[in-house]
């Protein structure tokens, strides 16, 4: 069964009375273990699509199912649980809670899941080691570099063992080398642990490294190629 199955998905925004068709009929399946990217120019609908997949936004029409379950009609509480337990998010920047240090940021998700304190700490520190932040665990986000912050965001996204990690332009605020290293990390996690990643990007480097490229243009899929 596909992790994600999207059928004839449309999204129209109302921008001061003007209808903006951000998505105009998307059909897409994402399978377990994929390392895929949604590419396309700015304004093509990448963020909109990821937000709908992540349960942050609702489609205007069409269906979206996660592991076979249609989530279109989920109420806010169910969506919140879905985001907590089945999806990991990595945003472009400012992902972290500023008053919490690295390990607390990672633990936060486990706390929401109701996991006990000692297991929380154990899991969070293990994950932080995996993303190479063994020494930075007790630092607040402000004391971490952009790349380190994104690594914490990756750790937080995967610590809850979600079915899929959605990353909206995760390298856009990083320099070439840092972005590349971050991508290496995610790829390694994908290979080693089988975590499914779905990016949005207009960064050529990310496109090159992803295993499948879904190309959006004006809210429709222009190209979908698996390498």
């Amino acid at each position, binding site marked *: 069964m596909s992790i994600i199955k999207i059928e004839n998905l449309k999204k129209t925004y109302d921008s001061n009375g003007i209808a903006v068709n951000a998505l105009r009929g998307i059909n897409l399946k994402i399978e377990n273990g994929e390392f895929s990217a949604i590419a396309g120019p700015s304004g093509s609908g990448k963020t909109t699509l990821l937000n709908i997949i992540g349960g942050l936004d609702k489609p205007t029409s069409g269906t979206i199912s996660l592991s076979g379950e249609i989530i279109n009609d989920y109420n806010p*509480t169910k969506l919140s649980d879905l*985001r907590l337990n089945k999806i990991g998010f990595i945003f472009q920047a*400012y992902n972290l*809670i500023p008053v*919490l240090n690295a390990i607390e940021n990672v633990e936060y998700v486990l706390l*929401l899941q109701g996991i006990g304190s000692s297991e929380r700490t154990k899991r969070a520190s293990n994950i932080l080691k995996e993303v190479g932040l063994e020494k930075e665990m007790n630092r607040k986000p402000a004391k971490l570099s952009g790349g380190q912050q994104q690594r914490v965001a990756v750790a937080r996204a995967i610590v809850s063992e979600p079915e899929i990690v959605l990353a909206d332009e995760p390298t856009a605020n990083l320099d070439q080398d840092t972005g590349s290293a971050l991508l290496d990390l995610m790829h390694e996690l994908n290979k080693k642990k089988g975590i499914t990643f779905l990016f949005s990007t207009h960064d050529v480097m990310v496109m090159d490294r992803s295993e499948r490229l879904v190309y959006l243009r004006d809210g429709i899929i222009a190209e979908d190629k698996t390498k």
Partner: protein
Amino acid sequence: MKIIFIMGWRNLWRNKRRSLVVISSISLGIFVMIFAMGFMNGFNVQMVENTIKTSLGHIAIHRKGFQDDMKLDYNFKITDTILQSLNDEEILAYAPRVKIHGMIRSSEASGGIMIVGIDPEKEKNISSIYDYTSKGDGSRFLTNEDEEAVLISSSLAKKLDLMLGDKTVLMFQDKNKEIIGVGMRIVGFFTSPIDSFDKFIVFTPIKLLQNITGLGENISEITIVVKNSRKINNIKQKLLTEINDADLEILSWKDMAPFLVSAVNLFDKMMYIFFMIIFITVIFSVANTLIMAIMERFHEIGVMKSIGTKPKRIFSLIMFEAFNLGIVGLASGIILGVIFIQILGIIGIDFSFYMESMRSWGSGSIIYPAVKTMDIVVATVIVIITTIIAALYPAVKAARIKPLDALHYV
């Protein structure tokens, strides 16, 4: 749960200056309130205690009618029944008095007064007149051996231009309504905390008055002081049943001074003004700070919600932050206020420079503030409740932030 506490606490100190402003305004409000309440309370207690100590005692026994019309006609004999019931372990002391309206006259002036005949030794146990009497420069309290001796206040002496050792004439009606004048020598001066009392009362030995007026052994009142002032009403009831004399009235100080009771009640009510001030301070400062804090953290709250934080938890977080603001302000205000009041309670605040009129309230010119535990409890409850009320709207607002809107907002 621990992380939520950590977040709440650290969020409080993110904008240190702002939080400190709120905390200090709450703290200052509480401080002012404790001070004002402590002051008022001290004022009330002193007003009551001074009145008890200078004139009323805790309980008095009179001939029925005396309280409304203090005439010599309302006199009574101290019976064995009365003596027996006064022999009670709850009663600290009692003393007889004779009271007559009259005039005092010097070569310069004259004035209406109340002449109070006292048993000098017994009086020491039930009132503070002895303590108020200056001892020195020839001034002294009355003794059992004194005959035509009178003790007057310094202010009355000044008014009438009388000196120690001077002779003065007291005029009053005897038992048969005959006006008599008695020459008396001034043996001492006293000063009580109650100005109106001083201007109106003179003391003389009870024996003398009883002889001159023809009262014999009869008296106008027995003034009683009890061991525990909280038991006044019980003791009064007990005396009523034991003495069981329809011709007598047994009154507590509250019965004798209803104006004092209403003054205390009025001052107590004025405390609500301070409660209102606190209420408004807390509501505005807490609500304002939280709204600003939430605006600043719009994106962050969006991230929190995106990764699955439920509105309820955001709500709790904001409430917890508000609670911290309130509690820290409250605690520091109480600590400062109580310390301050404790110190002032010992050294007192001297108002004699500013207002001689304080004395006319009967509180004395030095006020010793004293806090009531109950007032602090009320202040605490008020701050907590107002903090919750103030935080409710911002917390609901924060809980309802839509993650998508907030994520765009960096």
